[in-house]
């Protein structure tokens, strides 16, 4: 019996130990994190866009973090003017930090590419704007109709990429996703309260 106790209690102890260090302690330490005043709380449309960002798996190719300039060139390459800090993410649940840069980082994509129409066309067919892109198009975020009806917003698509007949209508979803992307602007200075000083990388 003692062997079993060593096994089960030892196994529990190691995993709970890690749980305390990596989950419970940070939870307690980051609980008093305040949102920087310049960071806008996402609106309803942006939240819908964020949901679409999640459900269509954008995180599998795009990160949302600017790393420390000491050992990376993220800032040099224009991904942001400073490394990202925990306070930048207080409204994020779940997080969308990402692990792959098959596509570029999007932490400041709203600052870098503020053009709404560019994003709409890019989502419909990335290669219409960026010939070397390997990003998939998301035509299912748009509506394909024979003719535009009253109140429909038609997407202007260059010739080779446009459907042979009918028009492509900008849907509520596509607009929400673009609104979310444009809302990704973190170019304000890093918040520097005492609580944050400690945890900055």
């Amino acid at each position, binding site marked *: 019996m003692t*062997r079993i106790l060593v096994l089960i209690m030892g196994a529990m102890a190691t995993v709970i130990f890690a749980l305390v260090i990596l989950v419970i302690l940070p939870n307690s330490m980051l609980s008093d994190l305040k949102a920087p005043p310049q960071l806008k709380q996402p609106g309803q449309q942006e939240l819908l866009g964020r949901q679409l960002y999640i459900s269509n798996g954008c995180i599998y190719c795009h990160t949302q973090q600017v790393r420390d300039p000491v050992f990376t060139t993220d800032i040099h390459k224009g991904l942001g003017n400073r490394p990202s800090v925990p306070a930048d993410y207080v409204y994020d649940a779940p*997080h969308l930090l990402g692990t792959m840069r098959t596509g570029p980082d999007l932490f400041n994509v709203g600052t870098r590419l503020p053009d709404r129409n560019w994003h709409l066309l890019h989502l419909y067919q990335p290669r219409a704007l960026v010939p070397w892109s390997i990003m998939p198009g998301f035509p299912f975020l748009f509506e394909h109709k024979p003719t535009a009806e009253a109140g429909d917003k038609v997407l202007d698509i260059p010739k080779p990429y446009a459907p042979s007949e009918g028009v492509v209508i900008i849907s509520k979803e596509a607009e929400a996703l673009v609104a979310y992307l444009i809302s990704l602007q973190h170019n304000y200075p890093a918040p520097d309260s005492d609580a944050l000083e400690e945890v900055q990388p």
Partner: protein
Amino acid sequence: MSTPVTSNPAQEESTVDHSKIKVSPEEMEAYDQSGRKPVLLGFFIAVVWLLIGTVLGDLSSFKFDRPDLLTEQAYLTFGRIRPAHLNVMVYGWASTAMFSVSLWLMPRLCRTPLRWGNLAVIGILVWTVGLGVGIALLLAGHGDGLEWLELDRQWADPLLVIGAAMVGASVWKTLAARNVHHLYVSIWYVAASYPWFLIIFLAGNMPFYKGVESAAVNWFYAHNALGLWLTTINLGLIYYLLPKIIGRPIYSYWLSLVGFWGLALFYALNGMHHLIGGPLPSWMIATSITASIMMIVPVVAVGINQHMTVVGRFGAMRYSPALTLAVIAAMSYTAVSLQGILTALVSVNRITHFTHWTIAHSHLGLYMFVTLSLFGGMYYILPRVLKKEWPSRRLVRAHILLVGGGMVLYIVALGIGGVLQGLSLLAPGEGFEASVSSAKPWLLLRSVSAVIISAGHLVFAYHAYLLAFTSRNSLTRHPPFYELKPVLVKKRVP
């Protein structure tokens, strides 16, 4: 220290020290048969998931080469197919096969028939239903949005927890009813994996994390799913298969315990090395890098132990495909762990982070180690449970060569592509286009290897079908790699 354990003569007399008395082959066969139902069910479901996951993986890979392939439907978009591939392979193929492996190992190691076998059957079915629901929801666009934890926390995850708990209950009940004094090292690994998995899976799926904390929990889970679930049960299997087939006890029992506890202690802390340079408190990342480097202790302990068991007898691989695969898997475990330690170093990580190198690394772990170990396990377990032998050595040979060769090509191609991509992402003068174009040819090579591996899976599935559902008798006179010239062994003096 005086203890009540030794000072209880009644107990001493009542339990025969079975570790001294060898079990008879007939008894072993009875233990195998006691778990027949859940073991066969688990392997059957696992192979079905393997084929589904293969299609999903191939499709994800082809989409890199032809980004306009199948983009019209939302459920076929890359961002849904890729996580579906991961979840099907991890929870469908590997985990279900691991259920069977543990339900087959425990009776043999505890020298008692499997307890609560029907509960395990229900557990496997509940797990499978949960996963099916989760994958369907994921493809429909309802996922939790956390890598490795995509399955819906409302509809899918509770079923997975219940299913794993039922299988775990059967494992632990068998352990509690054991007829042996000593716990063989595989028991440690297999039995501990179930509570570990339940704890990390529940902790990872809690809905109240926000911001960077959500990232910390995400990678705490994702790394431990590998370290405290997939790795442990497969190490348990390898620790059983290597000595058993070679016919030599494990080199050092103590070393295997060092490996077990070292893994439990250090692996659990590794997760944050997926977020190096990220917006987390730096002490967390530093902790994980340190723990990652400490992993060298259990990894080297396991590596030495398994190598010393097999050393001088690599020729046995000619006689047993199970051993061939187990040895490759064991070597891959050492390789992938050392690669992981290397990748956790900041100087390497600055290049390889965010690149296809990570994907190559995870396939070295999840395929060359976990999947090959499970294939090896199936080659060993299925004939014993079914009391039939594998019908064709040609198919065994084709399977092993296709999946082994295909995966080596996969890892090498994507590893090179990842480093080139990473150097390009880091080079101050280069635009983003360079990182895409430098990886492109290697991604194409990856798709080629994906096709080769898929062919291997088809061969395996067909062969497993022949074994299980037909009564074709084998005319085999020699094992599949018998003709292969031994490279690593001295010539046998007749």
